[in-house]
């Protein structure tokens, strides 16, 4: 067992820098910078528009950040995970280099998990930095009080919650998107479809809500936001169920990916 973990770690160590340091990673950095840009714009607006003065208190800023985080969760994180996780295997097929991995003496399922861990590390590193950075930037005008609020005050629990949700979102979205990348030939349509389902989650029946990532993540949010008039109310899941539920969801997706890669053949098309 420890040998397999060693192999997972070897693959992850090899792949993580490749995911983050190649030219292909540029869109990821732009995505990670988006929340900072959005919050920067909000800060500029706050200077000139009196209606935006609710950010002047820590509580008000927390409410604004709850909205900003919805943007991070539903757009930035999802798009970032699409870019990273769909390319983990499919990118190697496009580069015609997947066979090198298949020729190593490791089980293909281990390769999938190693690649997943590499993708998760990369996504986590970028988007946790983006989450934390944007939260601090939103509290920047509060000066040292804002920093204290986030580090040792009531805002600390919120900060850690958002970090945890970011980590879990990378697990959930990563596993689903990695499987889509392996199971289906056309990636864009299923990725958009899954994204649409995530957006439509508040309006789905209770049973369908559970077949999503955002349902479990919403249950962990420190501040709930109003989901609109037409939202179908479902009982929120306790964190004790939401976190294991998300992991089970991710494990099922990875199991499907492992099943697929075991049967995969190398045919780059022009041989």
């Amino acid at each position, binding site marked *: 067992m420890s040998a397999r973990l060693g*192999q997972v770690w070897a693959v992850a160590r*090899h792949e993580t820098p490749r995911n983050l340091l*190649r030219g292909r990673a540029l869109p990821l950095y732009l995505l990670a910078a988006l929340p900072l840009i959005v919050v920067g714009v909000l800060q500029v607006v706050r200077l000139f528009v009196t209606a935006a003065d609710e950010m002047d208190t820590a509580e008000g800023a927390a409410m604004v950040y709850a909205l900003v985080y919805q943007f991070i969760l539903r757009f930035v994180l999802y798009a970032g995970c699409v870019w990273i996780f769909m390319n983990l295997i499919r990118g190697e097929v496009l580069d015609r*280099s997947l066979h090198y991995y*298949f020729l*190593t*003496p490791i*089980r293909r399922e281990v390769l999938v998990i190693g690649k997943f861990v590499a993708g998760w590390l990369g996504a986590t590193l970028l988007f946790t930095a983006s989450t934390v950075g944007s939260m601090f930037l939103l509290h920047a005008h509060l000066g040292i009080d804002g920093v204290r609020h986030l580090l040792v005050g009531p805002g600390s629990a919120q900060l850690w919650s958002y970090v945890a949700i970011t980590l879990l979102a990378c697990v959930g979205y990563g596993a689903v998107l990695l499987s889509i990348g392996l199971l289906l030939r056309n990636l864009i349509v299923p990725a958009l479809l899954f994204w649409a389902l995530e957006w439509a989650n508040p309006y789905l029946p209770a049973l369908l809500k559970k077949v999503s990532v955002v349902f479990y993540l919403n249950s962990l949010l420190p501040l709930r936001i109003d989901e609109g008039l037409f939202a179908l109310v479902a009982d929120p899941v306790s964190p004790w169920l939401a976190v294991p539920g998300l992991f089970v969801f991710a494990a099922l997706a990875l199991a499907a990916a492992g099943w697929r890669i075991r049967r995969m*053949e190398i045919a780059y098309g022009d041989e």
Partner: protein
Amino acid sequence: MTDPGRSIVFDGVSKFYGEVLGVNRVTLAIPPGITSLVGPNGSGKTTLMNLVTGLLQPTEGTIRVLGIPTDDPERLFHNVGYCTQVDAFPKGLTGAEFVRFYLLAQGRARDEANRLAERAIERVGLTEAARRRVAGYSKGMRQRIRLAQAIVHDPTVLILDEPLNGLDPMARAEMIHLFQSLAGGGRHIVISSHILHEVDLISDHVILLNEGYVVAEGSIRGVRGEMEQHPLQILIRCDRPSALAARVFEMDSVVEARIVDGGGLLVRTRNADRFFLRLNRVVLDSGLAIEAITPADEDVHAVYQYLIGGTLRDQNA
């Protein structure tokens, strides 16, 4: 009988790509030594190699490499190295990183992986370029770094798909020397190549493929010997070819004798053993000075022409 635990065994293997035939009903056992796969483009050479290494799954039949099924990469690739002809690499890696990854993924320590990678890279003569990115390599260098990756873990079975492509004559000679040195000690080297005279130089066995079928397999001499419909050609260089021609015409095993430029006699015979016995007697009786006796068509090229037709170079052009 060949020991299946020491051979690459195909048992009724067929591979279809949808409706298209890859290889059909292949049953053979490849013993240790250098085995060459020879055949025109699309004959099934690469398919056979991809099947051995598990990159393709057979539609029918089973393949075992040293007794290991090909769907068990964990055991298989401790024993097998494969240098494909796919000229592409994982992006952003240096030559050393590319070779080393194979070992790190096995769970080997970084120091050991570095040492083995350096040794393999040295064997293919790329030490100076090892720290450069593969993307900047020439075609020959890329070929050699792939070979380094295939041999880095000292495999018992080495599969090489057109390994001499893109190499200059000097590098080809070095690689052939390397293959010959690797083939010692009971290793299997399976090579596909369309450079037939080089195949001829190094191969212990050949497998001839055409349109997905194994047309012939065995040692070159053995395969050639079984082709009774094509009499063996023997070139005899001597001081009096006309006198020799007159004597060999009397032999019933000789089909044709023709004087060729440069003082030689080309003889075609259906029974080489009998011919050589009689030739000894003729030489002793007539006092001819024989300079050389060489089979003129006992090579892969001739076997290929007789069995498949045309020349491989034409078909690969």
